């Protein structure tokens, strides 16, 4: 099985460890993993600000790079949602690209969905001595139905205890440009998330989208919580979480 790992622009720049954790998980599961070298960004920022022509151009670029693999795996719910759900509609009226967009969309999976639903992974390499709480990111949850997969996988991490926080499906207030454009509103929203995290008192909050995690960690630290770790699911599953 030959698959392409789409690490996402945010992981590339802000937290390469998530990319390496994904690599480890996929390679240990026996996959041949290729990191297509030209990959940059899936175009979500252009799409969500309403610049359709630019979003289309970047979609075509990504599709051309991601074609020809058995699967494409992405350690992000929102980038997966972009590729799986947005690309086909973005290119639906372009005869040269519609079928290609659909083909790439059909074989693209968010990391936890790929591990659980496609590979049906029974073991994961990670170990974690402590309790974690899982934040459901919106695009993954409501766009792709990611809910059971990450929890099932976390359940296989030795030593890990999963404790659900209240309102785990509530948005963290990130929303891409939203967090910069309406910083104060975003802060008010992420404050509620921080309170939910504090209420459950876990050692770490885990999620599948780096954008949300940067937002949550940034606010936790600003509020003076220097204890709660903020980790990507891939890091925990791969046993690459700094502990």
């Amino acid at each position: 099985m030959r698959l392409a790992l789409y690490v996402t622009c945010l992981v590339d720049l802000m937290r390469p460890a998530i990319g390496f954790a994904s690599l480890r998980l996929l390679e240990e599961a026996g996959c041949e993993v290729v990191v297509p070298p030209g990959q940059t960004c899936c175009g979500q920022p252009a799409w969500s600000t309403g610049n359709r022509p630019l979003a289309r151009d970047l979609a075509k670029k990504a599709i051309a790079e991601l074609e020809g693999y058995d699967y494409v795996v992405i350690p992000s719910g929102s980038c997966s949602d972009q590729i799986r759900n947005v690309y086909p509609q973005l290119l639906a009226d372009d005869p040269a690209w519609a079928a290609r967009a659909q083909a790439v969309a059909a074989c693209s999976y968010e990391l936890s969905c790929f591990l659980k639903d496609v590979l049906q992974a029974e073991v994961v390499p990670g170990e974690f001595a402590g309790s974690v709480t899982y934040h459901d990111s919106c695009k993954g949850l409501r766009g792709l139905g990611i809910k059971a997969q990450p929890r099932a996988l976390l359940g296989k991490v030795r030593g890990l205890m999963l404790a659900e926080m209240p309102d785990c499906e509530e948005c963290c207030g990130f929303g891409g440009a939203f967090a910069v454009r309406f910083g104060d509103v975003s802060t008010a929203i992420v404050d509620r998330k921080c309170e939910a995290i504090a209420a459950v008192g876990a050692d770490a909050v885990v999620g599948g989208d780096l954008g949300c995690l940067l937002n949550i960690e940034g606010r936790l630290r600003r509020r003076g919580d220097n204890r709660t770790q903020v980790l990507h699911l891939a890091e925990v599953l791969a046993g690459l979480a700094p502990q």
Partner: protein
Amino acid sequence: MHSQAMHFQARAGVQVANKGLQKALEKAKPLFVGKRAKGIAGLAEDGLGFEELRSTCEAIRRRVVDDLDVWLEIFEERARASGAEVLWARDGDEIRRHVIDIARRHGVTKAVKSKSMLSEEARLNEALSAAGIRPVETDLGEYIIQLAGEAPSHIIAPAVHKTIGEVEALFAKEHGRPAETRTSADIPAMAREARAVLRQHFLSAEMGISGANFLIAESGSAALVTNEGNGRMVTTLPRVHVVITGIEKIVPTLEDFATLMRLLPRSATGQSISNYVSLLTGTRGANETEGPEKTVFILVDNGRAALAGSDFSDMLRCIRCGACMNHCPVYFSLGGHAYGWVYPGPMGSVLTPLYTGIENALDLPHASTGCNQCGSVCPVNIPLPALMHRLREIQDERGLRPRHERFALRAWGWLAARPGLYRLLTRRAARYLRWLADDSGRIRVLGLAPGWSDGRDLPAPPGQTFHELYAARKRA
């Protein structure tokens, strides 16, 4: 209501910092969310599933929106046959003229009102007062904000932004008594106090003004869904009853109405049915002792007809339950007033630009994290985030976004299409961000994005990009 939507960003900042408001919202949110969840779960007792039911409700509303003109003609004919008068209003101006004209013809000096968001669209109270007709709001929430001289901040809970202390101060002043310290246990007593005052108005007003939750085409009736009973007084006690409602509120049959009623109260307040459901048809009959002598329907366009057949026709399905705002993280950080016009929350972020001009409400379609909590609870399946997204695209197509934003996006897009250059610059950026960080690995001030760093740190990257490290690993 004059739109203030262009000032959203500034108003949002003020509301986020408003402690009293935050307290009121914090209290309301779990109630709204919890009650709806319970109400929807209760569907199972009737052997119904939410998803199937909302598909049915969506289909009923689609059928109307697809042939709106036909259903309106049927409604008009049946309503006239039952003795009501049917008038049409293109905009707020025409609503005001119609109502004042009716009031003058019938010698009206006071009008009691039950909740009507359309009268807010038309700024009707202002116009009535100017014409010497006293409007009295009788929905408890509307009564409170009328005393406060404010606009509703929520479509079904207009005074949700008020704390009990604020309400007590208003009541003490209006009812001429000293203010007391109140807790939520006093709410029934306060409601009784308002009721005693309102009762006199019901008995003395010559005109009642209401909205309608639905217009039923087959019977020519208005359906009214309320919890306080004031709606029934407004529509039956005064001599004249005026129903002001949007042209999109039609449902074909009573059967369809019954189906929609499965989801409307559950979505709004979690109730399986509201305390009062009224079907109002025609005028007082020859052998009847109650009901208005004159019933007038004012069917309002005010931007609605233009949505039919457009990219935004989905929005015409809206049944005004409020579930979208009740589940919106942005709404519950700000309350409704920040949105600047009649309708707040996700449905308002779509309707305000469409009804008051896209260029007059540039922030609203962006005032969403795209979480789709609204779309997932909407009882008629309106894809609210997709509609907000379409408005963002129109802003971009028309060149309405700020120049610096367009330039930054274009520059970034140009770069993202050139992997070699992109790698070079992201490597630099990773090092720069690392350099900005303090000893604990956090960036506390981010000059490029102060909106971010005013409220939170940015966890710093390690200083080398993934692709850089991966290339090194492959070489090794």
